[in-house]
């Protein structure tokens, strides 16, 4: 067990260095801030038309941010960041060197996955900080909206945690695609196609079983009063992600590099 942890600790440290001077880290920071920034501008200039006087503005603020993030930003961000990180290895012909290193082969897959999980967490943490900070800045700049009169750190934290869990399967699937496919167009293109399919079929009665809808359903729970903490799509995402991760790790342990 100790050896496994050592391999993963060393691997994560090596993987973290590889994204230095690359777009991956910047993307993780800028992508969530772009949604928060745009929503901020809309509220700043048109907030008086969106918000009803005397009501809690955080609810609408949170809904606007969560919907854009869960439907579009997260799936596209995950397609892009996984393609970028695995693209570094594809472009440098690095797989053969990694698989020829004196470490178990399965760590190659898991180390990279852990890095991407870390980048995703950074992105969600940035989103969390951005939503809260921008809300309070609006309260300061536009006191008439009333942001400063309410405290919603817990509900926003829970809401973002739900979206994170709902996104895990997309992360793992896009990771597997970009791990296998050298072409960055395939990795990103598949992500775009899956998102488009969700948008087109969003009114379909079984859309809740479609993985690219899971972050949306997870976000929806936060905008619905009396919703339970754990929605079914979060469970699907967790279970599907765990199965896919186990399969990927197993396959990586048997990999041949031709």
């Amino acid at each position, binding site marked *: 067990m100790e050896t496994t942890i*050592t391999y993963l600790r*060393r691997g994560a*440290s*090596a993987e973290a260095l590889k994204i230095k001077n690359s777009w991956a880290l910047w993307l993780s920071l800028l992508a969530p801030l772009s949604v928060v920034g745009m929503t901020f501008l809309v509220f700043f200039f048109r907030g008086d038309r969106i918000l009803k006087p005397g009501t809690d503005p955080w609810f609408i603020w949170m809904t606007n941010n969560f919907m854009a993030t869960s439907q579009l930003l997260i799936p596209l961000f995950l397609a892009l960041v996984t393609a970028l990180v695995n693209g570094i290895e594809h472009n*440098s012909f690095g797989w*053969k*060197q990694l698989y*020829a290193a*004196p470490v178990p082969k399965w760590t190659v897959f898991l180390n990279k996955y852990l890095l991407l999980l870390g980048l995703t967490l950074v992105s969600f943490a940035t989103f969390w900080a951005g939503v809260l900070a921008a809300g309070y800045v609006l309260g300061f700049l536009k006191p008439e909206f009333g942001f400063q009169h309410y405290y919603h750190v817990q509900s926003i934290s829970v809401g973002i945690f739900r979206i994170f869990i709902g996104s895990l399967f997309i992360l793992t699937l896009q990771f597997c695609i970009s791990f296998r496919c050298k072409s960055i167009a395939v990795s990103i293109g598949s992500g775009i196609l899956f998102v488009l399919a969700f948008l087109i079929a969003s009114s379909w009665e079984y859309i809740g079983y479609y993985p690219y809808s899971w972050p949306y359903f997870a976000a929806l729970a936060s905008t619905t009063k009396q919703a339970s903490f754990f929605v079914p799509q979060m469970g699907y995402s967790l279970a599907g992600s765990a199965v896919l991760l186990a399969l990927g790790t197993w396959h990586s342990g048997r990999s*041949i590099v031709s």
Partner: protein
Amino acid sequence: MKHLIQTQDLRYRYGSREILTGLHLNIPKGSIYGFLGPNGAGKTTTIRLLLGLLTPSGGSIDLFGKELVRNRVEVLRQIGALIEVPSLYRHLSGRDNLEVLRRLLGLDKKRVEAVLEIVRLQQDAHRPVKQYSLGMCQRLGIALALLSDPELLILDEPTNGLDPSGIREMRELLIDLNQKHGKTIFLSSHLLSEIEKTVTHLSILHEGTLAFEGSVQELRRVAAHTQTLEVEVDNALLAREVLLLQGFAVETLTENLIRVAVDCKPTAAHLNRLLVEQGLAVSGLVYGQRSLEEVFLSMTQEATIAADSTLSSTLTLA
């Protein structure tokens, strides 16, 4: 332990195509072992098998006396490898490239500066790899292979794409690594001329099996025993008929010139006598000794006599 790498009847099949058809390799400790073969002969496949990147269809691989399949991580700790083009992260500096591998393997930080010094890249270590020349990339690739201070280096075509000065630098570096740092080096190449001054032992791979294995001196002895004779006659067609009937291997070059494989000088005299007795006018006999490169080519090509034999000495004029 006498041999660091030993393969027994190593086989590899890709689809229906047999890439390796029973390879027996023995790489002595302390040697610089050249693994020669034309493109597509199976050199890179062999190296990938030795590093556990591919699974053999048959046979066995022992590294450091241990079976690779059961001791992969343990034996790979003693091996540094450069497989075809070096795996370099072009957006990172040379030093950061080494740091990535150092972190992965949990090595001492001092190793980075030590290998930069060995490959003479300290001055450029801070620059992004995308600014490096091909020769610098190759040297950085070797630095990566040296990082864990391995006993055995496996280098796949390390001189590929280098200009003559880069090849000379690489040659000096490999000899230095072998003699001063005690590394055993297994390197592949498709050009004998690039490595014949570097290697102590070599093998020639042809169509998935070894056509030769031994020291460079042994290959030179093979070359010395393999001579050709260019014979100038008034009627090359008749001369060819006469010699073929006597069991010589003959190649017609022009209407007055033929090339014959001979093993010693008495044979040349016998051949001359035969032609004269048949009424042919022999106006020139010239020995051509085959270079190591030609011996290598003859072992890896279908033709028994290389086309560009170098003429070395005139024997007689009739």
